[in-house]
């Protein structure tokens, strides 16, 4: 009996030992394999009038739509942290397609791009000067010696157009006010809301987006003045992109507003859609810039 017991004990021990060994046995390590990216890849740059996530959320579906409509082509949305870096990328020709503001459009035309479409309507392309309701501003004169928040110096609708408007109304921002460039539209709005600045300059698309996001805060703000409107943002293509692709993209964009699906895709962009356009459509912008330059504003 004892011997049998001994036998089973030994068997048990061996099993336990084997289990121990099993845990220690080595295996071939895993290593993923890779291959070069094969599809035609186009980078799309939208001027950073919204922060990167919002911009992505608004435009990525449209790019996905384009990919679905055009075979063997991929589109990547490349956002930029600020206008400066966006403009730099544009100057370097880093984007295959881009949606710059009118000012940047003029600049891009000398960096190898051409205009194929523009956003509608033009009426939204204007500047807004907003303040807290409790600031009690009625006259332009009241702004003198006060601070004002801008996105960036080169933001046409949100900076240059309000600056020029105030210049024409007797207030030289650069000389008579304290301008602050806070890199993004939302930052500018937040500055005035937070009383960091007395007023802020922005444009309707950004302001509406902000109002949607912060409806309660929006109640405390009001629009003081609107500038005259200019031409809306342009859809530009690098000239070395195959014409077929450029044409297909342009056609698809222009036709977006014709379908419900297209309208749904356009909604987040705060535009009515795209209309076909060319470089010549931006002559008014060039003229505004010349006038601006002549005014001596920065």
């Amino acid at each position, binding site marked *: 009996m*004892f011997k049998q*017991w*001994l036998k089973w*004990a030994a068997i*048990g*021990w061996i099993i*336990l030992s084997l*289990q*121990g060994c099993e*845990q*220690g046995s080595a*295996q*071939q*390590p*895993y*290593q*993923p*394999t*890779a*291959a*070069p*990216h*094969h*599809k035609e*890849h186009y*980078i799309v740059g939208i001027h950073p009038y919204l922060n*990167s*996530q919002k*911009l*992505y*959320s608004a435009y*990525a579906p449209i790019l996905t739509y384009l990919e679905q409509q055009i075979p063997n082509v*991929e589109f*990547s*949305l*490349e*956002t*930029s*942290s600020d206008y400066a*870096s966006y403009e730099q990328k544009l100057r370097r020709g880093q984007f295959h397609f881009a949606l710059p503001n009118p000012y940047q459009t003029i600049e891009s035309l000398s960096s190898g791009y051409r205009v194929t479409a523009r956003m509608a309507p033009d009426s939204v392309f204007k500047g807004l000067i907003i303040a807290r309701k409790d600031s009690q501003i009625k006259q332009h004169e009241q702004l003198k010696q006060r601070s004002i928040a801008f996105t960036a110096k080169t933001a046409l609708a949100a900076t240059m157009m309000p600056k020029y408007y105030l210049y024409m109304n007797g207030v030289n921002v650069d000389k008579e006010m304290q301008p602050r460039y806070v890199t993004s539209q939302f930052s500018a709005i937040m500055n005035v809301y937070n009383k960091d600045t007395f007023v802020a300059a922005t444009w309707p698309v950004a302001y509406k987006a902000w109002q949607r996001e912060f409806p309660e805060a929006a109640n405390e703000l009001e629009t003081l003045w609107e500038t005259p409107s200019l031409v809306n943002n342009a859809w530009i293509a690098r000239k070395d992109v195959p014409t077929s692709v450029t044409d297909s993209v342009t056609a698809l964009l222009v036709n977006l507003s014709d379908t419900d699906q297209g309208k749904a895709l356009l909604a987040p962009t705060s535009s009515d859609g795209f209309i076909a356009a060319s470089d010549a459509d931006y002559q008014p912008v060039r003229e505004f810039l010349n006038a601006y330059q002549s005014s001596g504003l920065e």
Partner: protein
Amino acid sequence: MINSISARLIIGVIITLSLLMGLMVLDVLNKQHKLLTQQATQQAVAVSKVVTNNALIPLLNNDLNSLRELVQNTASLSDVDMLFVIDNHGQVKAAIPEVYFGQQLNDEISQRWQSQLFNGSEQQPIQYWHNEAQLDTIVPIRIDQSVVGYARVLSNTAFIQQESARLLHNIGLYALIAVLVGGLITWLLLRGMVSQLSQLATAAQAITQGSLQVKLPKFNGHDEIATLGKAFELMIQSLKAQIKELSYQASHDSLTQLPNRAILVDRLHQAFERSQQTKHHVAIMFIDLDHFKEVNDSYGHETGDALLIEVAAIFKKTLRPIDTIVRMGGDEFCVLVEDIDNLDLMSDIANTLNEQLKKPLLVNDKTVFISCSIGISLYPDDALTPETLLRNADSAMYRAKELGRNGYQFYTSEMTQRALERVHLESEIRIALVNQAFTVVYQPKMNGFTHRLIGLEALVRMQDQQGHTIPPNRFIPLAIETGLIVQVDRQVMRKAMLQLVSWRRKGLNTGVLSMNLALKQLQQPDFIPFLQSLLEETGTQPEWIELEVTESEVMTNPDVIIPLLEAIRELGIALSIDDFGTGYSSLAYLKRLPITTLKIDRSFIKDLPEDHEDAAIVSAIIGLAESFAIDTIAEGVETEAQKDFLVAAGCHAIQGYFYSQPLIVEQAEAYIRHYQA
């Protein structure tokens, strides 16, 4: 080794502890493994999330340099083998190692997960163990619900194995120490117990080898071993007592509590040694009670036993304490007497014993008379070994018995001769039985008045192989003693009855043929059937024969014998009491005896008619017989005067040399023809 209890227990404890410790180690290892695995997975997810959280903006901005820095910083953390940031088109935007940069991962696993991720079917981080040392973690980079890309971290989890191995090493060592300590403690505990058990085992072995002088440890406490030890001590005590009792029983007679033959032989040896130094004699007295058998038969065994006890007591009282008294069996005793410088001492002792025994003994409320015959044999004169000494004393005792009992005899060398002769004679009897060498002679019984034949008594004669005639008084007592008398008598009866029938057929008037019937024969359970079949076989009529039993034999146990005699009478056979007058018949029994004839013993006839006492006895016997209406016959009649006296007294039947000695067949036939009635 494996056969010792402690070894088995220690091995058992070690194996049990090993198993338990093994299970414990296994459990700890499992738990540790689970913990480490959990830790590894959580860490991998944490690392991945750091990447995804920080990669979103650079990924959107296609800020490849930031992504590169991000993955490099993250991968510098330990345990990260490979790290990828991949965009929503599957393109590697940053990677460690950098060789993957700008590529698409196209192995099956990568493809599968990527499609799961982009389809939105996988909301949680994906984790997969490629093997024990490689954990793959994939965490999507999202904006709201849309997947912008993902971070993939291949963690090196070899530390789990290393930790497990280290732990196994450590707690394995502790477990081993625990097992060894357990074994050691068990051994220490067992050592005390087992040593006690070993001593018990040694003691038990010694006992089986016959030694009870064993040394046992002192058992204190109340545990099982102490209980066993105490029980063992009790067992040894009990064994000692039992052995003592057994050895006493083996060496003593249970009835009289006297030592037995074995002790006697032993003491004889010792006595011989002492005798060689003192030059004094050693004597053996062989004592046999006379007629003890009759006491047994008459009063029953209980009385016989009580008598033996009484006799033993008398011996003890009479003899010196240093004398060894032994019961040899039955009614035989031996006394060893040492240190004898004068042989008269032995005669004195023998006489004293005889005197003491002769006194009437009251046993079981019965008065019993007893005597003994004593044979004495001396060392070194008569024998040099205990056996011979005893045999010689026995022979001397027989001689004393032959010489009339109630006496003693010193051994002589002739006794040995006689003993040898007895052995020889016994074998002669057996041979004669086989050879039908017993012959029958016939002594006529005459009517003393008419001088006519009234009958014959058949008497046995024996011849040895050399043709020598052996006298009946030599072989008949031996035949009775050895029980051979039964066969001898039956042979004689058959021969005599065949002869009787032969004569009758010849028209001869033989009268009644008497034959002696030994008590032993009568007591044979098959005697009556034998007698019946013998009558039929030989063609003998029952009234032609008569059986003679001796008075002394009948009187040994009349209550048993009378019914047997009655059975014979019922067959129609006449019965005669032989040797009447020598026994101690009570009249009450005489009246009950189913006999037809009284045969007056020759001792009363011998001195007739001169001896007035005998004459008076004979007349009285005849008168007694007449009053009971029983015939009488006188034997041993040798003279005419004797015959005349008897006839005158009323006993007409005469047997003896006056008419004729026993005759062989031919002579008898002639005698019958001449004197038949």
